[in-house]
């Protein structure tokens, strides 16, 4: 397979696309937010419960979109569960920078762990927003906003 292609569609990504984790409505949820990319029609809703110590106790998502956006959302939910919202805020910025090629996850300090797998989108400008959509949505949910768009 082509280098860029195999970097983008790694087995883990394909797996999360096929069987997304935490793919359900969270009811009741403390926060929820709708993320929409009008360019491609990707649409996700992220649900969030945060306890009195600002720890994310539960997170889920529903919606529809391409493999990159869905896998990114799925992996995000598994990654941020149990984390403090300040830590998540930091991850949001790191993930964003990595997707845009401003942060090299192999050499620059970061806490992205297995989310490094999305470093491949930096080569494909049209796909950066697919990977970051769910993060923008989570960011907005934490900030108490209702709707975000990546356009």
């Amino acid at each position, binding site marked *: *397979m*082509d280098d860029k*292609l195999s970097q983008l569609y790694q087995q883990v990504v394909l797996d999360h696309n096929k069987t997304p984790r935490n793919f359900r409505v969270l009811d009741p949820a403390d926060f929820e937010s709708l993320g929409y990319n009008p*360019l*491609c*029609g990707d649409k996700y809703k992220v649900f969030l419960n945060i306890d009195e110590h600002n720890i994310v106790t539960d997170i889920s998502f529903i919606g*529809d*979109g391409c*493999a990159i956006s869905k896998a990114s959302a799925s992996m995000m939910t598994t990654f941020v569960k149990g984390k403090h919202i300040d830590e998540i805020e930091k991850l949001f910025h790191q993930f964003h920078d990595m997707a845009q090629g401003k942060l090299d996850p192999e050499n620059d300090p970061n806490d992205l762990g297995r989310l490094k797998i999305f470093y491949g989108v930096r080569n494909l400008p049209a796909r950066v927003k697919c990977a970051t959509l769910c993060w923008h949505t989570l960011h907005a949910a934490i900030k108490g906003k209702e709707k975000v768009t990546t356009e």
Partner: protein
Amino acid sequence: MADLQESLKAVNKDKAERTDIERCREDFPILARKVHGKPLAFLDNAASSQMPDVVMHAYTDYHSRYHANVHRGVHLLSQEATSAMEQAREDIRELINAGSAKEIIFTSGATDAINLVMQSWGRANIGEGDEIIISTMEHHSNIVPWRMLCDEKGAVLKVIPISDEGVLDLDAYASMFSNRTKLVGIVYVSNTLGTINPVDEMTRIARAHDVAVLVDGAQAVSHLKVDVQQIDCDFFVTSGHKMYGPTGIGILYGKQELMEKMPPWRGGGDMILSVSFDEVIYNDLPYKFEAGTPHIAGAIGMGKAANYIKTVGYDAIHHKEQELLMYATEKLQAIDGLRIIGTSPEKSSVISFVVDGIHPHDIGTVLDLEGVAVRTGHHCTQPLMERLGIVATTRASMAMYNRKEEIDQLVTALHKATEIFR
């Protein structure tokens, strides 16, 4: 003998003036480029078609030899620019067989042209409770302006239904007219489905009810012979960059007697005969609707693109594109899990499709890395997507210069996509 020589000359002249469609590809330098190390297969012509070098040369020629403003200067450059732009108007008039070059208004594109009609004719003629008919398969450019006008005036937007195959329900259309119907806005060729709508017949039906008709021809002019007088529509719009011309230029055709009665929309230079602070006397057609310095190079380029189409000839274009359409349809249908969206018997060389389990955006990326340029998404036809129960499609749209080898490249790349995602 002299007669024979004369007729031979005529034959040779005809040959020289004709561009062989099999060799036309050489006229488009961009088609030789590689993307991601692969030969480019450009199958996104419905979004924007490429320009032949005659169009680009005309563009450069204006800038390097006679750049000046039009309709104003007494100096030579301005006169040359004016005459080149007016020649372009005439060349475009001829292509769509308008009765007069006065009926050709240069706009920034089809969208701009529809907005002109909405702002000028629409605001003067549509009132509260009036009805506008459009179809389910309209591009956003022929929905949003009318939605805006309806919201402003309290008018009603009525929508012609379609079948699952993407064919308009003409019986439903014929029964939608009332004494409040003022306008029909209909797309000639659907950018998403490729469906060619029977605009002649639809205009006849509207005429019988004394209703004005606007035909959106953005996807028509590069594929089929348009005759606005035969269609008998009141308005026809198209864009330069979807017919081998530059971006930023398009035209509105409107019937002269109708446009003479229409109020100007944009005010400014060039659209006036005289101005005082108390009174403005407007210019005649077509200038009444061309306020400000126009996109002169674009207009000249669009004129050359019109002439290029004429030299290749619509018969040759139609034959070649239908052959490509049939070939691509057959090859794509054979792919497991692929479903073609839009199967009207009357179709231009556009194929939208979905593949089980693979989002169009992912298909688009795989194809891109294989050198195949397609469009993925809702194609600015969200209500149509909703009607068809899909979010997005992948769309391959062919032009006169495409080859079967490029369809093969598309099919190979699609097999690669299905391998990755299954």
